[in-house]
């Protein structure tokens, strides 16, 4: 019996100003304010609702530590893509709805005092799809981590590559992975946190390549769409297919992390993986050197655009149709 998997189509009521939300895990009606206070985790069944990028940064980073970079990056329409609507119109609609320019925010922040280069995706913006802007932000986050000798943290929430940018979207797989490989060669850690959903080209590029792969419980994580998997192959899907726990049991996730514990988990990992001050061995080529966050940040000053935090604090709403696997 094929598992019913969530549609990726946010419904018209995906961003409603309602007061209440029905939990897809336990069917309880949850008061939105309390849900937001609980970082959008159901207090009765632990269902992890989707989280906006802004809220994610708030959950993960030391308060006030985040400085956004490249806030001005914005999609163009390289193919002149029109389906039932022109691509630029879709982008504008998403911008209006979310207050974001595209599906990722990136910058420099701190996690329990450790400075990190971080990029966070938002499924609310065109399904978190990766076009040139998302690819560029992930790549710059990796490059800054490499040059600044910082860890890289990427929080994924994406349906995959953005069709409307065609193969240029596909090329973002190569662009981002190449940058992650340079980070790896420099001996700097990359922690990938996968959230619901992390699929398609995002999963098949940087998201799966963390030195440590973390994932929130019961997130949809997979390569091919479930319809493709089931339909093309005419085969039953195994239980829990493409859910975090399935990925864990198949060896692709190091740890399943509760949202409330993600910050402490990442901080603990960084204590192990952040390069130690260079000793006798540190003189090796490519070896780690001391990170000087202040000088790095000052060197970034000229790239800072706009206000430090241009993202509205209010959660920007997520579509939640996912039944528990």
């Amino acid at each position, binding site marked *: 019996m094929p598992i019913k998997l969530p549609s990726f189509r946010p419904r018209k009521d995906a961003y409603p100003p309602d007061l209440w939300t029905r939990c897809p895990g336990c069917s309880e009606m949850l008061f939105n304010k309390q849900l937001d206070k609980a970082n959008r985790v159901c207090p009765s069944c632990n269902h992890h609702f989707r989280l906006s990028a802004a809220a994610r940064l708030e959950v993960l980073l030391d308060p006030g530590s985040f400085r956004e970079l490249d806030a001005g990056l914005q999609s*163009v329409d390289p193919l002149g893509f029109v389906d*039932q609507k022109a691509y630029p119109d879709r982008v504008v609609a998403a911008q209006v709805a979310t207050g974001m320019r595209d599906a990722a925010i990136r910058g420099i922040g701190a996690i329990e005092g450790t400075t990190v280069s971080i990029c966070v995706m938002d499924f609310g913006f065109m399904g978190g799809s990766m076009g040139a802007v998302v690819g560029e932000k992930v790549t710059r986050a990796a490059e800054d981590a490499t040059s600044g000798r910082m860890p890289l943290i990427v929080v994924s929430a994406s349906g995959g*590559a953005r069709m409307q940018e065609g193969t240029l*979207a596909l*090329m973002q797989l190569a662009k981002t992975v190449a940058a992650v*490989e340079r980070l790896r060669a420099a001996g700097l850690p990359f922690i990938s946190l996968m959230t619901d959903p992390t699929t398609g080209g995002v999963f098949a590029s940087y998201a799966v390549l963390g030195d440590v792969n973390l994932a929130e419980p019961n997130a949809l994580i997979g390569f*091919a769409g479930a319809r493709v998997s089931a339909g093309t192959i005419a085969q039953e899907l195994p239980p829990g297919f493409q859910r975090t726990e399935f990925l864990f049991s198949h060896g692709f996730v190091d740890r399943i992390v509760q949202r409330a514990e993600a910050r402490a988990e990442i901080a603990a990992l960084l204590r192990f993986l952040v390069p130690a001050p260079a000793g006798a061995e540190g003189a090796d080529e490519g070896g780690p050197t001391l990170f000087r966050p202040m000088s790095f940040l000052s060197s970034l000053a000229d790239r800072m655009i706009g*206000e430090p935090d241009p993202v509205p604090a209010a959660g920007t709403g997520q579509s939640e149709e996912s039944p528990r696997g």
Partner: protein
Amino acid sequence: MVDRLLGRGRDAEHRTAAAPPSDAADPKRAVWSRVQLARNQRRPRTLEFVAAMADEFVELHGDRAFGDDAAMVVGLARIEDRRFVVVGQQKGADTNENIRRNFGMPHPEGYRKAIRVMELAERFRLPIVTFVDVPGAHPGPESEERGIAEAIARSIGLMSRIRTPIVAIITGEGGSGGAIAIAVGDVVIALENAVYSVISPEGCAAILWRTADEAPTAALAMKMTAADQLALGVVDLVVPEPGDGAHTDHAETARRLRAIIIEQLDRLSAISLESLVEARYRRYRSLGAYTETTEAPVAAPPSRGLADRVRDLLDPGRWPAGVQVPGPGRGRDEPPAREEV
């Protein structure tokens, strides 16, 4: 303000004079016929190409961990005195072979076999030539269980940094992640009737038009022909096919590819490995079009006018402006980009 629109596409160095399909009367039909040619069952595949062009070939097998995937062939080949490693997908020529080769859709072990032999290429200083022809990586549950996404990502990662020249050739269907996994190269070549896309036209149509019947419309919208990919800078070089397409003359197609491979291997082998790997990084680093604005973003998203202006910056002659919209707009109902990638 617009600092990069089409990546390196506009100033790519290596190009032939392949013009976009000229069937201006019905561009959709012209594109769809290309897709059909790219999928033609009699089109030559990796093993046919290698048999026709190489003076010696030794196929290698196995990923050293799980299996030997017949949808991916790898081996050691020689053309005159040029030795290189071959990696390519392999569809079947008939139903039986297609079943054995999973219709040319590799499982993770196929990509891991490719990774293994590419690492071998680096160790023994052999360049790599890849032949890309894949509907997509195998999308079945076992493929997911064994980590198709991990295998693709790791193959891309290896190719992005490997210290040996890579010539990637899209010979047929360049299907999404399953294609880019072995298509990261110092030079990316396409046969004239090859196609390259982020998702199959059927998948794209099913998502955006809600019916796979609109696949030709989606194919046109995605600009997936070799000529379009050349214009986008995703492909560096298009090789014309003989007669009515590669399937009508395997030998001549192979002869043309052979000449290009020789030329490119010789060109790339003259470049230091440092420069080569750096240029490869820059190649992919520059792909993708975006703008950068300094306007205040918060709750004041760019006006409809801005988006129009951005689009106007594109060469209207290059991009057919009049793609038909098959239905009315669906308001804020926003489908995400996903089916295969």
